[in-house]
Every structure is written in structure tokens, then in C-alpha cells.
């Protein structure tokens, strides 16, 4: 429910939600959302902050920057600056 709250508090419509138990005893929730790139980052951060969340992923094209490891690890200044350029 906290996963849904992360979306609803941003005024995002949630046209589709699917939740199921996984083979390893965990659960997977899949949400269909219309979001901006900035909101993707906000949602990733908020969902990862939930105590029981172990992984966040996305099939959206603009989520590529968020496919990296979480939390963000320190990298060299040059590589991070180059990534932002």
C-alpha cells in the first residue's frame, strides 16, 4: 500500500495495478503510470525507501538513468560529469 501511496501523493492516476506472490516468497507489484522523467526519479527514491522494497525496475524508456545500482555509489568526478554532459 505504501507503493501505491508513493504514486497517489503525487496526483498520479494509476490505471492499472497488478500484484502477485513470487516464487521466492516475496511479492511483485506492477503499476502502469504516466510520469515525467523527474517523477521517475522521485518514485524510485521513494519506493526504495520503503522498508520491504528490495528492487525497483521500469520498462519506460526514460528510466534508463535509474537502471543503475541503488543507492547511487560515489564515482569519480570525471565520469559523473561526463554522464551529465
Amino acid at each position, binding site marked *: *500500500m*505504501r507503493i501505491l*501511496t508513493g504514486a497517489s*501523493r503525487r496526483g498520479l492516476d494509476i490505471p492499472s495495478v497488478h500484484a502477485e506472490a513470487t516464487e521466492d516468497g516475496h511479492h511483485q507489484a506492477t503499476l502502469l503510470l504516466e510520469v515525467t522523467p523527474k517523477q521517475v*526519479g*522521485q518514485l524510485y*527514491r*521513494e519506493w*526504495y*525507501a520503503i*522498508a520491504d*522494497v*528490495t*528492487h525497483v525496475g521500469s520498462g519506460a524508456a526514460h528510466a534508463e538513468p535509474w537502471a543503475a*545500482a*541503488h*543507492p*547511487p*555509489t*560515489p*564515482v*569519480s*568526478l570525471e565520469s*559523473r*560529469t561526463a554522464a*551529465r554532459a
Partner: protein
Amino acid sequence: MLKGSEIVLQCLRAEGVELMFGYPGGAIMPLYDALEGSGIRHVLTRHEQGAVFAAEGYARVTGDVGVALATSGPGATNLVTGIADAKMDSVPLVCITGQVRSALIGSDAFQETDVFGVTLSLTKWSRLVRTLDEVPEVIAEGFHWARSGRPGPVVIDIPTDILKAKKEFSGPVKFKPHSRPADAVADGGFTDTIVAMLQRAAKPVALVGAGAKLSGATSELRRLLDDLNIPAFATVHGLGAVPPEAPYYLGMVGMHGTRAANMALHETDLLLVFGARLDDRVTGDPSRFAPHAKIVHFEIDPAQLDRVRSCEMPVIGNLADTIPAFHAELRRHKLPDFSGWRAVACGTERAELDPRGLAQPTIRFLDELFSRLPKNNVVLADVGQHQMWAAQRYRSSTPRGFITSGGLGAMGFALPAAVGVQLARPDACVLCVSGDGGFQMNIQELATVHRLGLPIKMVIVDNKYLGMVRQWQQLFYQRNYAETDLSDNPDFVDIAKAYKIHSFRMNEDAMREFPVSNETGDQMDRFLASPEPELLVFDCAPEANVFPMVPAGAALSEMLLEEEPTQ
């Protein structure tokens, strides 16, 4: 065979709970029935909000988990503001609420509310207990989440039938957390990069937030800052982490921060952030925050990174680990000479910290009072103008010595929180500064203060307005003082007398001289040294304003420094 209520109390004892705050009612009654002999002291407040703020005060000053109890329905909903406050300010808090019996849940029964649902977005973790068997695990897990990582609030909702049920009890359990991505810590490689950034910087600064205190790393941080010797400043929750007499310290930063701190932050080319979340009170307009700076962000909660402004170098982990690692690397290198930058940032501008320059009587009053506090003290501030004045003049270097509701800004916080603080620190002089508006929001806790004989020193800064709102109305709403007039306040001295608490008045005339007269000084000294609870009502000018002030949406460099024409 033990009752569920007895099992709950044994599990709380196993988590180290010795004190809790609460207010009884129907659904939670079985828990109260089991209190005697539990080894846990319960403090009865006069409102559940008083209980949760008291639990917060206890937690904020000790770092231990604060515990609040309430019954179902209105008892539970009265905890909500305190829960939100703990979430915003990273306070370890466990609230245990009674719930209607399991068979009635969902039927809109008497005093039933879905407290789990109501507090979902405000809690770090929460659970509605469904069976007696899961009580030990739930309590162990709840305390784990309350105190681990970035601390926060937890709600455990227990139906009354579970509190009454019985079972064989083998003892409390330990919670084994699963690993989470957020538990990862920075590897050692970050130190080289930060040193390199420092060696390229011309105007580095350091910002210290609540994390410096929550991590217990203030000693390490102070040694690091002494070696860096760069301009440093604090958020309101970072006050006390840096000794105010440090020559590089510029005071509080942000909306009502010092001019020196705000300008240094605006001009810096390298910002080291230690345990601060860069909220909007600190940044001003985020798009114009530290416009020339690269940011190195030491932070335990990954959710706070890049939230307001991208940081070039995130350092995830507990400051107790990351600061020593960074400092060890720093010592192996020679840094550039920052003395020129330091002279500009920390030179004559620091004069604003000098009390001799204070003209405003209320600020003089708070400054004078703070200067007379014994070394072992804790200062609490409620929310409003007095809070900002208190924060601006706070001079102690005790890490958990300044307690206030920062992120939520909940009026009515200070008096009940002072109850928790005084119980946690019985030998400390606890000074509780409130405005006339906020004091009335939990004024009923004077009964708690009196019953327990807590020697809290309460101050009301009485300007007969909802002062901070009035200031905004003056500056930004053409003096349309809508619904901020409190000129018909009751006589607080009479109210204190009714609660059998000694009280007296002082007004601005006492602050016209510098230094203050012997008579005024003696009054203040007697007030602070009294072994009894005391209330000092300071009558002050109605339209004094807090400056500097960064208007909403403005950059830190656009702060108002004095009374200026309104927009």
C-alpha cells in the same frame, strides 16, 4: 500463560523501554491493566498529542526510541501530528494504539479508525496485529525500523481482543532484517575524489544538519571541520553540532539564517553537506541554490539525494563511518590556502552574531536568557518567530541541546516535548520557549508538569499575535492581518496559578539597557535556578519581525535584512 498485554509489555522491556507516554481508553485498557509490575513507567499526559510530543522529546534528546500509547479511534488520530513530526525530523518513535476487537474491524464500530491507513504515508513502518502469535515479531521489527538507518515513526495497532487473549510465551525475539539496497555503504573510493574536489576549489563551505547529531559523530565532525578550516554553518537541526565559538562558524543558514551564512552558501564553489536533507527552508529557490557549487552529499538516506538539487558526489552511509574515512584520507594531503576566502566569509560579517549589536528587545531577552543557562541545559522552541529568534541566538555546543519541530513546524510541540526531555535529563535545566499561540495548543500539559513536579522553565514570548503569520501578512499581504489577532489572550500568569505553577511577567523595558540591570539579571537567574516548574511571560512588541528573511521562492542571496517596503 500470559495475556497479550503482558506479552506486549515484556517485549517492550526487551527493547529497552523504561518510559512511555500515553492516555488510556477503551480499546487499550487491557494494556493499562497490565502496567503495574511491568517495569515500565507510564506518564499520563492530558492529550494524546501531548503524549506523542513527549515521546518525541524523550527520543530527540536521548536518541532512544520514544514510545506513545493511545486508544483506538480519536486516541489514535490524535497521535497523527506527532507521527508526521517524527517522520519529517527523523525521530525514532513507536506508537502503540489499541484497536476495536478483531471481529468488528471494518464495521465502523465505536471508536474505530483505520489508523494503519491514516498513517500509511507518515510512518516508516506499521502493522495491524492480527494474531497474538505475531506480537513478539511485530514489536521487534517495529523497533528495528524505528531506530535503524534514518530513524522514523512506527505504528503498531493491536486489537483489544488480542491484548486480552492468552498464550504460552517463550520470550521476546530478535528481528533479523533482510538486506536492502539502501543499507549499502559507500566504499572507500569516495575519499580520493572529495580530496581532489577540495584541491580544485576556491570557496568551499560545509553545511551541517541533523544527521551529525543523529549519527553520534559530532566529535569526529568537529575534528574534521577544524582541519578543513572552511566556513561552516548549520541547519536548525544542526545547531549545537558545531561549537559556536569556532572561528569558521557562521551560524544558522536558510530562510532566517545569518547573512554571512547565506551569502557564503550562495557564493561557494564546493558545498560539503553533512547529514542535511537540503529542504526548502535551507535552499530557498532550489533552481538558484548554490548556483556555482559542486555538491558532496554525506547522507544515510538515499531518498534524500538529488531530491532538490543534483549532487556531484553522493556518499551514502552513517556519518560515524564516512567522516572518519574521509578525514583519514584528508590528513594525507595538503589543501590549498583558503584563508582569503575565509576572511571574506567569516570576517566582519560575524559581527551579526555579537549580542552587543542586537537592538530588538525580544532577541536581547532570549540572548540574555541563553547566556545565563547553566552548562547542562536543553533548549526547546515551539514554532514561530520566537523559534527563529531562539535558533539565531542559540549558543550551546551540545549536540542534542536545541529541540524544535523543524520539518513539520508543529505548533504546540514544545511544552509536551519538554516533559519528555526533562524526564530523560532530570539534572538538566530545560528551557521551553513558546509563543502565545503555540503555548495554548497544548496548554493542558501544565497539569502533567505540575503532577510530576518537573522543573521546566517555560517562557511565553507574548506578542498577542500569531506572529510569524502576521509577519508574512505584513510583508507580502499588505498588512491584511486576517485571523492572526490574539489580543484577547487569557492571562497566562493566572492560568499558571490555576495549575499551581509559579509565574511572573517581564516586558521589553527590562531589555532597554545593555547589560541588563542587576534586578532583571537576578530575576532571570532565580527563574533558571528554581527547583520548581516556572513560567515567565515576556510581553513584547506586537509587530517585531524576524530578519534576515529569505522570501518564499527567492534565492538565499535575496534575503530581506530589515524592514523594507512591502510588495
